[in-house]
């Protein structure tokens, strides 16, 4: 493998990523650009991935190319992300998701009337799309919760949702403790967008109760929906009110990690801006409207046009930036914090649980032992067979072969 061919190959794969992203980690993106996720996963590298160092250089061992290998492998493997959206119906959740990912996740949607809603309980609907951008694949799962907050008595609203989150953790735990760990599918909820109604004066009792119930299980990102209802002053007031109430009730929302000191100023500034805008107030739309001579996504009112991607109109761009540049971090926090919490709770509980749980565990152990024994026998038999063949049918027989 000549260096030039090698370089060309890698350079080719990375040229598109390199030219706009420029420096290292995911930055302010001008378009959807989730292909920057791979950048954020290169925590080790301080070097530009496009640079390939000639291995003939003296004093060079070559492991500085490890990040490139990681990069290639992760691009091949693809990324997966699970996003949950929770909020009362009619707050524009589906529109926002469609706007964020530029797809139509709900092609045939029937919205039930109020009389039907009286009977309905909260349901969980997970839809998965595979989107690809510049060779980077993302398997995105959006978990929707229709029926949340609709009922007259919402006391049991969030039980279904919490059960779902726990079930995903449970499943992952089970897979992780299994024998065959090669293809574990990660369906754990990495992030939850909680939609707050702009019509109130802050958080409602249901909002507070729900967030307190899940803040230890999932990363919560509060979002103010339908932000075009509010004037700028009202928006500031509402944001401040919500932040105060979150603090007052000790709700743990997802905090963006501070930019490290070695990052450049732009990135630090961007992180600062993002942190100052939480909770994000967004407007979603996938309709193209003609405004000032160009076509923009927005909402057309008799008094003006609200542009979705205009930072002065709403925080949509900021939300998208945050989601993209911190997708990796969201997954890590889910893995390192929420999942580990769940796991330790679960295993602690496992010892003290009811009889059938214990029996289950014993059964599992027995099954595993039986499987091991079977495999050993099989190997022994195979070895014996080989020996027989070698000896040309010398009927020494038996399975006295070596014990593995």
């Amino acid at each position, binding site marked *: 493998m000549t260096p030039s061919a090698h370089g060309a190959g890698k350079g080719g794969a990375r040229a598109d990523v390199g030219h706009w992203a420029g420096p290292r980690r995911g930055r302010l993106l001008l378009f959807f650009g989730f292909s920057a996720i791979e950048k954020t996963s290169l925590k080790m590298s301080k070097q530009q991935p496009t640079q390939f160092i000639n291995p003939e250089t003296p004093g060079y061992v070559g492991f500085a190319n490890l990040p490139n290998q990681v990069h290639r492998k992760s691009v091949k493997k693809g990324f997966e992300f699970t996003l949950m959206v929770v909020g009362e119906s009619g707050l524009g959740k589906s529109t926002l998701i469609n706007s964020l990912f530029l797809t139509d996740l709900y092609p045939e949607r029937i919205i039930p009337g109020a009389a039907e*809603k009286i009977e309905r309980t909260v349901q969980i609907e997970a839809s998965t799309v595979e989107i690809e951008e510049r060779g980077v694949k993302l398997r995105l799962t959006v978990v929707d919760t229709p029926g949340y907050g609709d009922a*007259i008595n919402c006391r049991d609203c969030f039980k279904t949702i919490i059960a779902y989150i726990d079930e995903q953790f449970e499943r992952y735990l089970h897979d992780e403790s299994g024998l065959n760990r090669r293809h574990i599918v990660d369906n754990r909820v990495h992030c939850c967008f909680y939609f707050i109604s702009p019509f109130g004066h802050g958080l409602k009792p249901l909002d507070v109760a729900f967030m307190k119930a899940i803040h230890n299980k999932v990363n919560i990102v509060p979002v103010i929906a339908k932000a075009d209802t509010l004037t700028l002053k009202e928006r500031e007031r509402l944001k401040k009110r919500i932040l105060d109430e979150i603090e007052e009730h000790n709700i743990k929302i997802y905090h963006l990690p501070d930019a490290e000191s070695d990052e450049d100023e732009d990135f630090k500034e961007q992180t600062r801006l993002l942190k100052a805008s939480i909770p994000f107030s967004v407007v979603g739309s996938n309709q193209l409207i003609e405004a000032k001579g160009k076509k923009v996504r927005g909402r057309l009112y008799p008094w003006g*046009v609200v542009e979705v991607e205009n930072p002065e109109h709403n925080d949509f761009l900021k939300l998208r930036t945050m989601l993209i540049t911190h997708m990796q971090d969201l997954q890590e926090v889910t893995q390192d914090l929420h999942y580990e919490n769940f796991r330790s709770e679960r295993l602690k509980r496992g010892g003290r649980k009811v009889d059938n749980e214990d029996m289950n565990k014993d059964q599992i152990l027995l099954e595993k032992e039986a499987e091991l024994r079977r495999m050993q026998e099989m190997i022994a038999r195979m070895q014996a067979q080989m020996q027989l063949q070698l000896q040309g049918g010398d009927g020494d027989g038996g399975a006295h072969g070596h014990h593995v």
Partner: protein
Amino acid sequence: MSKGQSGLGKSTLVNTLFKSQVSRKASSWNREEKIPKTVEIKAIGHVIEEGGVKMKLTVIDTPGFGDQINNENCWEPIEKYINEQYEKFLKEEVNIARKKRIPDTRVHCCLYFISPTGHSLRPLDLEFMKHLSKVVNIIPVIAKADTMTLEEKSEFKQRVRKELEVNGIEFYPQKEFDEDLEDKTENDKIRQESMPFAVVGSDKEYQVNGKRVLGRKTPWGIIEVENLNHCEFALLRDFVIRTHLQDLKEVTHNIHYETYRAKRLNDNGGLPPGEGLLGTVLPSVPATPCPTAE
């Protein structure tokens, strides 16, 4: 009386309707008070005057309605309040030495604020209106209508009208009380085209095209409250104040109050209240019994 979840702009709208500070705005209770745990009834009386005509206006606000996690039967305090006013009037009417002008604290009109979700009515809205359309004139109003574009607005209104019809909810002006053909055609037009009114309220003034107008200023434009292209506030105001104010009072007196009175007298065996067992206060809330305790 203005009803609806907190933050729908009820107080602002009432202030705009009567062009004066007749309602205590939520921003003043923002800082000290939290969302009340039970539905409260706050009545504030004002005397306003225009062109030599004085009107004693009482605005009844209901903070806490629909804000809790469990909103079952949250309409009961309101139903109770309305019936209490009827009871007061009734007692005064059957009094031996009654006043010439009985103080009328009955609720003449209930503005019900619907949240502009764009989808449909909420189950709570349906339940409330079902229970209360029989005791008071309900005028459904779509709050904060600047959330919706024109197509969304007309679709939403159509859906709401249909839902109200399907569920048998008679809002004011009720079809059965149209007295003559003229009334009927006029009211039909209002019922089928304009209601529920999609309104925007504001008490701030801005300069638009050289005039000072009430409106809301946003980075993408100024929403004028009294501009019919922007919202239907002017229609609501004309409807409630300029054309149907007296009718609201008459329907309340002739129909709702009489219904209440008839029921009370029937319950009491044809005798006026108070002439039953001595000192017994008969229950004044003919509401459906609540199945669950709070």
